[in-house]
């Protein structure tokens, strides 16, 4: 259900941007969502349909791109893919790892008609 909170922030950002750039109708929004974010794609779409009503983004398509998770290991100093959401280096098995990619929640781009 927290997808609605996320989407409410997203719609507000899009409205602000549209005002600033004089976008009259938004066609497409591109959202980057890290693999490690506990966000359900369907719930995001549903929330977007509800939250975008009567806004400039009402007819927009919400495109969600998942960002693969990556870890940087402090033992072997290498970067590896995060497998099965586990916080363990896939190369050396070390557990002193930092998530370097996969927690994104970013509005990448907005496509629309301009005045």
């Amino acid at each position, binding site marked *: *259900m927290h997808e609605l*909170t996320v989407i409410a922030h997203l719609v507000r*950002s899009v409205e602000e941007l549209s005002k600033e750039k004089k*976008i009259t109708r938004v066609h497409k929004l591109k959202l980057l969502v890290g693999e490690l974010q506990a966000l359900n794609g369907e719930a995001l779409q549903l929330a977007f349909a509800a939250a975008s009503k009567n806004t400039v983004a009402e007819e927009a398509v919400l495109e969600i791109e998942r960002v693969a998770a990556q870890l940087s290991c402090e033992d072997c100093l290498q970067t590896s893919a995060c497998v099965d959401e586990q916080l363990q280096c896939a190369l050396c098995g070390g557990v002193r790892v930092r998530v370097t990619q996969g927690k994104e929640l*970013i509005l990448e*781009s907005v*496509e*629309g*008609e301009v005045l």
Partner: protein
Amino acid sequence: MEFKVLQKILAEEDNVAADIRRLLQKHHIAMVNLISSPGSGKTTLLEKTLPMLSKRYRLGVIEGDVETDRDAQRLRKCEVPMVLVNTHGACHLNSMTIFNALQELPLHDLDLVFIENIGNLVCPAEFDVGEAAKIAVLSTPEGDDKPLKYPFLFRESRLCLLNKIDLLESVDFNRKRFYGDLKAVNPLLPVIEISATKGEGLEQWVEWLEAVVQQSGFESKKR
């Protein structure tokens, strides 16, 4: 026409969380965020924990509930400053709510603040509210599969409390599987096994909290 934006969606929430951290730092207050399913024993845990710490530290509680003040009523007996937040349906406490709640607490007169979040293993884990640590509270009757089912919470937490350990024999909870799964999800997450009702493990939990309080600059306070 396409506009590149590259803007963090929860930037506002994160900014408020950063404000909270500055506020707490200024007052040398440690704040911990208890997250669990409904019925895992968060309120009972606080009922037991507050009296154990209240002689040494000045405590505060932010009590989150979807509806009612039932939990708050139970904690009122502990006589620590408390703010009740009813979210009326919302599934988590966000940073703005916590910021406002903190304004109602006597910040000049506090060392440690507990947030009892909304009973939910998903949403509260997702939001930074400026806490020093998220604490995952799991109880044995809920089953040993929770780390794999809700990895996000167990990744974000700094401590896991395994509550109702006194019921271990009578419920379907495979301790070995639990620790194996937890190790896969977050190998560095410490676990303290407790029974909030029977008192088991609570000393160790209190010691953990004391370390967090010390890290927030407790010693440097003029008292």
